[in-house]
């Protein structure tokens, strides 16, 4: 369970990233965060694994306040939170298997990982994860030889290998075409259901949010302006979140093609 309690975050330059956030995310939920660019979606998501640190309030994950974590506490917290990025964030020169094994870093001793002495189970797990996203035949390809969609699947496999309790995805489909976007979202949703991994995804696209989310949280200017199950959401809700009418480019489209 993730509990934001009166969370505020002011960046060193004075920008208010988050204002008075009170949100509770239950285990197994698939939450989609929506909001205009600069609304604070990334700041929200990155607070959970402490890539940024809120400056006020308390943030409980599994009933422990994580804001005081440093050093090994912090690394232990991060091992149970997987993260997926817009730009896949793979090591382009390394092969797919090595990239996926990087998901085990937090569970592996420094010496073992530096000398590539991975346990057999870990390599097995990496391979299984690649199979789950159907990219196991690219095992020994260099990451930069893959297409964007394939790279994002590798990064999902990396997160699976981490065996996380939570998955954070910051605009995972923003660099992909519509069919590939749906494919990636489908994998995320499937993993959420099969492994009961709580998943929080930032999305720009309204139609995708509606299609995949159990619950939608809308942000504007650092504040949560909507929070509710997808059944309560209509076009009007989005217009309220965005503070303007809905446009063509708020939609990804292509839902039938995949």
């Amino acid at each position, binding site marked *: 369970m993730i509990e934001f309690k009166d969370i505020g975050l002011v960046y060193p330059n004075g920008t208010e990233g988050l204002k008075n956030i009170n949100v509770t995310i239950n285990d197994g939920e698939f939450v989609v965060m929506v909001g205009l660019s600069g609304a604070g979606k990334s700041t929200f998501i990155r607070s959970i694994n402490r*890539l940024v640190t809120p400056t006020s309030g308390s943030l409980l994950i599994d009933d422990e306040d994580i804001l005081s974590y440093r050093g090994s506490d912090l690394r*232990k*917290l991060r091992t149970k939170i997987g993260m997926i990025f817009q*730009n896949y964030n793979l*090591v*382009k020169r390394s092969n797919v298997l090595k990239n996926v094994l*990087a998901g085990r*870093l937090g569970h592996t001793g420094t010496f073992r*990982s530096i000398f590539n002495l991975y346990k057999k189970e870990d390599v097995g797990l990496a391979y299984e994860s690649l199979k789950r996203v159907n990219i196991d035949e690219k095992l020994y390809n260099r990451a930069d030889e893959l297409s964007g969609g394939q790279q994002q699947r590798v990064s999902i496999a990396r997160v699976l290998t981490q065996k996380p309790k939570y998955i954070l995805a910051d605009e995972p489909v923003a660099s992909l075409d519509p069919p590939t976007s749906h494919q990636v979202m489908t994998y995320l949703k499937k993993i959420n259901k099969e492994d009961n991994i709580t998943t929080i995804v930032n999305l720009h696209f309204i139609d995708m949010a509606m299609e995949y989310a159990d619950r939608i949280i809308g942000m504007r200017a650092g504040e949560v302006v909507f929070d509710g199950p997808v059944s309560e959401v209509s076009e009007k809700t989005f217009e309220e979140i965005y503070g303007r009418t809905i446009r063509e480019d708020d939609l990804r489209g292509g839902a039938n093609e995949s």
Partner: protein
Amino acid sequence: MTKQSNSLSQGTTPPIFPVKTKIQVTVIFFVVIGVYLFSMFWTQQQMVGGFGNAIGNMVVVIEKFFPPNLSILPAIWDPMAQTIQMAIIATTVAAVLTVPLALLSAQNITTFKPLYYFTRTLLNILRTIPDLVLAVVFVGLFGIGLFPGIIALIIFSLGILAKLISETIEAVDMNPLEAMRASGGNILQVIFYGLVPQVLPQFTSFVLYVFEINIRASVVLGLVGAGGIGLVLDQQLGFYNYPNAMAIIVLIFVVVLVIEYISNKLREALI
């Protein structure tokens, strides 16, 4: 702001470079030309008889160098090997020591500013000392031989390598490093998994490049007493034994060419 848009709307095209830059560049250009002309004039005056006489003198001396006495080749092979060993040892040690120094002087890895500035400054100071000066100092400290030469070369190559490699590190794609940090990796794991694969080819290439420089530098260092072929060359020149000296020069020339060729081929294969 408003002024600028006014002048644009009046139809005058703005200069590509700001006027201030233009003036600065022009002034610098003329100062440099002035320095050239002055130093040409000055060197002429200092040389007895000017350039003409110097060239005549050169021909006389060069004639004495021929033919090179190639029969001494077996005897000078040992000091030549010493010179190469000196370069190999110095390059290897420098390559190892460079790793922490380059990491500490890369702004994206060493986010603790004081430490970053400290190593940066240290390396900058190191680089200002010419290799010959280093050699002279260490020969003074440890006496004539290979050891002072090796120490001088290590410090000399550290300065270059750490600078080149820290700049490579700063240009690296930070995204995978963030991903590894986010998955709970510690700093060493992040460096080995995210950074090393990205800089390894450049690193190897730079080490080979510095090795080439070191081969040549170690010959020169020999001249001031730091052992190897340079020392023998210095002795032969001291005895006015020009044919022997010429044989040594020919050997050095061939060895440097061969090593540069090999190293170039290796580097091409890497990048």
